[in-house]
């Protein structure tokens, strides 16, 4: 209190009101935000609200997955030296986060087989939007080929991201096995094609070997592969099938679901495109004493320098979650990641076999990763048995001609008991 009086006096002011004499009376607001609470009152109130969340046996996925997160991951990103730091604008005093983000770029490049990864984007879907914009900057062409089974939410976001560009979308189809139709896609690629969005696993949840063959037909188009980072424990990575830009949702890499946010956009590309890329890049250099030292580099692409001509408007990204992803992958190591991916495929297989045994069939026969599509539409039964699942294909995508198609998803956390309970619950109907 005394300090404040001294400070006011030193600037020739008597009261706090004097500090706001430049805000005219008619602009003054009168609001009641409420009585301040003690910490105890706050926690009690929040806990009361939290009890309205209930957790059931879950078979949910389609982009967000309940995977096991080693405690060390949370411990690392809770360290206040990382948690309460800002963007490393002064690199000499911020080497810790810069080093950690450089390692993130490296580990995601290794995982995907791509040359360069930026230091994170908001989420998977907005990364797709930024990738389409980047492709347009590279080749200036105006046709974008998208999968006919793309999620509505992804498509809406991409459309918003290209709102100011002169481009059009052309859908390509899927064959009777639910895999990318190479003939149809091939017939739609021409000299106006800017980019081709490929998904693997695709939106039906299938590991799509045809997605890996688009390189044979792409001509000069830019391929944008939307992948599942956990699946790369066992699947050929996007870099191995000549992907130009690889993007994904990184939530599975040690980040809690949190009802869908904050998430982590993984964004990688071939090195020739680095000057056209969005987002922050951390580069390795040295200080004047020849110590290894990291800085944000190629900032001339970014909004604070280039303003209206910037590659993107992105400023804050998901740095802390990029650190979580790096820690997660480092704790797991190669065999850990491979095992989690293998278990996921096997659980999916087990789920499909068990469902089949009670007469609930898959829509497509193929190899699924986490998401499995069944002919099933009895959501009420699920709810009565306290099971969450059965997300409808027609809610997620524009496909309406398989009205009873719905998803059940698994992770390595899905137990045999969970699957047995699901099958038992549905078996009598």
């Amino acid at each position, binding site marked *: 209190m005394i300090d404040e009086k001294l400070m006011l006096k030193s600037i020739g002011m008597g009261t706090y009101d004097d500090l706001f004499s*430049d805000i005219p009376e008619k602009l003054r607001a009168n609001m009641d935000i409420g009585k301040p609470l003690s910490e105890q009152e706050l926690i009690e109130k929040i806990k009361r609200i939290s009890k309205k*969340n209930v957790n059931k046996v879950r078979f949910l996925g389609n982009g967000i997955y309940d995977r096991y997160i080693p405690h060390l991951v949370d411990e690392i990103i809770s360290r*206040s030296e990382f948690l309460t730091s800002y*963007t490393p604008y002064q690199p000499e005093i911020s080497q810790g986060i810069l080093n950690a983000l450089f390692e993130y770029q490296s580990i995601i490049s290794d995982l995907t087989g791509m040359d360069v990864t930026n230091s994170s984007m908001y989420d998977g879907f907005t990364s797709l939007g930024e990738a389409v914009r980047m492709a347009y900057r590279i080749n200036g062409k105006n046709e974008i080929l998208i999968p006919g089974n793309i999620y509505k939410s992804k498509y809406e976001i991409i459309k918003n991201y290209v709102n100011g560009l002169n481009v059009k979308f052309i859908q390509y189809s899927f064959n009777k096995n639910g895999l990318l139709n190479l003939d149809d896609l091939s017939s739609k690629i021409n000299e106006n094609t800017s980019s081709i969005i490929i998904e693997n696993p695709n939106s039906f949840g299938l590991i799509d070997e045809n997605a890996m063959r688009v390189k044979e037909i792409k001509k000069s188009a830019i391929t944008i592969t939307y992948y599942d980072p956990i699946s790369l424990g066992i699947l050929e990575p996007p870099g191995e099938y000549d992907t130009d830009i690889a993007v994904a949702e990184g939530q599975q890499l040690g980040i809690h679901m949190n009802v869908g946010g904050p998430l982590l956009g993984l964004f990688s590309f071939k090195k020739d495109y680095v000057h056209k890329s969005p987002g922050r890049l951390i580069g390795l250099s040295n200080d004047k004493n020849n110590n290894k030292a990291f800085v944000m580099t190629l900032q001339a692409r970014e909004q604070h320098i280039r303003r209206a001509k910037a590659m993107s408007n992105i400023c804050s990204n998901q740095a802390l979650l990029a650190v979580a992803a790096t820690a997660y992958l480092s704790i797991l190591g190669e065999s850990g990641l491979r095992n989690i991916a293998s278990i996921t495929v096997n659980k999916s297989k087990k789920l499909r076999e068990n469902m089949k045994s009670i007469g609930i069939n898959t829509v497509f026969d193929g190899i699924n990763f986490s998401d499995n599509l069944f002919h099933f539409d009895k959501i009420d039964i699920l709810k009565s048995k306290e099971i969450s699942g059965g997300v409808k294909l027609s809610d997620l995508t524009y496909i309406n001609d398989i009205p009873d198609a719905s998803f059940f998803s698994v992770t390595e956390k899905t137990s045999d008991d969970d699957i047995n309970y699901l099958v038992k619950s549905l078996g009598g109907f």
Partner: protein
Amino acid sequence: MYKQAHYDEDFLIDYNTGSDYILDGEKCDLPENIKRKSLKLPNLRSFDVSRHYTKLSEMNYSVDIGMYPLGSCTMKYNPKYNDYIASMEIFTDVHPLDYEENIQGSLEIMYNLQEYLKLISGMDFVTLQPSAGAHGEFTGILIVRKYFEMRNELNHRNEIIIPDSAHGTNPASAAMVGFNVIEVPSDENGLINLDALESVVSDHTAAFMITNPNTLGIFDDNILKIAEIMHKNGALLYYDGANFNAILGITTPGIMGFDIVHFNLHKTFATPHGGGGPGSGPIAVKSFLKDFLPVPVISKKEEKYFLDYSIKNTIGKVSSYYGSFAILLRAYSYILKNGNDLRKNTEKAVLNSNYMAGQLRNYYNIPYKKLKKHEFVLSTENTGKRALDISKYILDFGIHSPTTYFPLIVKEAMMIEPTESSTKKEIDLYIEVMKRAASMDDETLKNSPVNTSVGRIDEVKAARNLILHW
């Protein structure tokens, strides 16, 4: 004496102490043509991962260590009760596609935050979806575009006006949505030059994006006149909420005549910034724009909360799901905890800024009007020193430097925002360091910093000889 740790720390990939992660191995049958041939990930013990990050953390500055007066970045104390709340499993372990009846608690938090943000901004409707401030701007400008599209005016309304003192995200966001950016100069007081503004406003104008107080920390009391100029012309007024910490509880963008506002929850509402993010950038609009908001918003009917997709002319989605919940939850609990004391935070923040400006005025040129809000801008030009060198010198005292070389209209600029979290003692030390820097010999300045993990870094080399991978 401050001395930051320095370790010659290996990369994770170079440890090779052997992974101790246990998970029973399984094989799965995959055709050879789709199988991964080789995968190289770090191979080390969990203990080494822990040590690695502990060492890195000691080489990182944070607001929990000391003052972090980056102008327009509002680095205030991040209360720890928020981190506790945001780590509760009952919130973290919630899937976005679960049935609404299973996630009522999370939806209620988001609904309540929407209500608070309406109150605090004086606006009518809120979306929590944008992931950061710049993403909020992008969303706001998409709404501007949709509004004129529905009015069949998009063909000619293709310009967005921005002051020359604006944050870089403003022109970048406007351009991303396809608008041409028109810059207006500031007047001799650092405010919007009304004549210049009137001369560029036309039937091509879609919106004017500003922040008030502006990036010089000066409140523009012509704001109602500015709003009138825009509205009379059929254009919209956009509020960049980066500087909200100057006005919270005192006035609102709603009262000032703004049509669209974005918030930076990690600035105004004390959520941690995590070394660059995640942030969170909700936006609020006046009721005539509610039909364009992204879907879903959180609505309430008979005590049940639900994901409301019923917005008529929605711009669609801008984020994968509903927003950065773990950040939204922290902002909500911060507002709930502080209540009407939020206004006191604003007062303290403005006092700290004016006190600091008042003391530094004797050593540096602080241009424009004397009364500042939450931040101020000084120029080091009168000292003959470069802002860059002074910013490096400051680091040696275990305090973070201000934003430098911004706004662009002040030469050798340093933009300083102490926030309400700084004590007089801390500020006095900062002033002392700045005072010394003003008369420090060039040799010392050029050689600084010496007490940080590393010395001055060769940034040109980093860009010329790009190394982005270990």
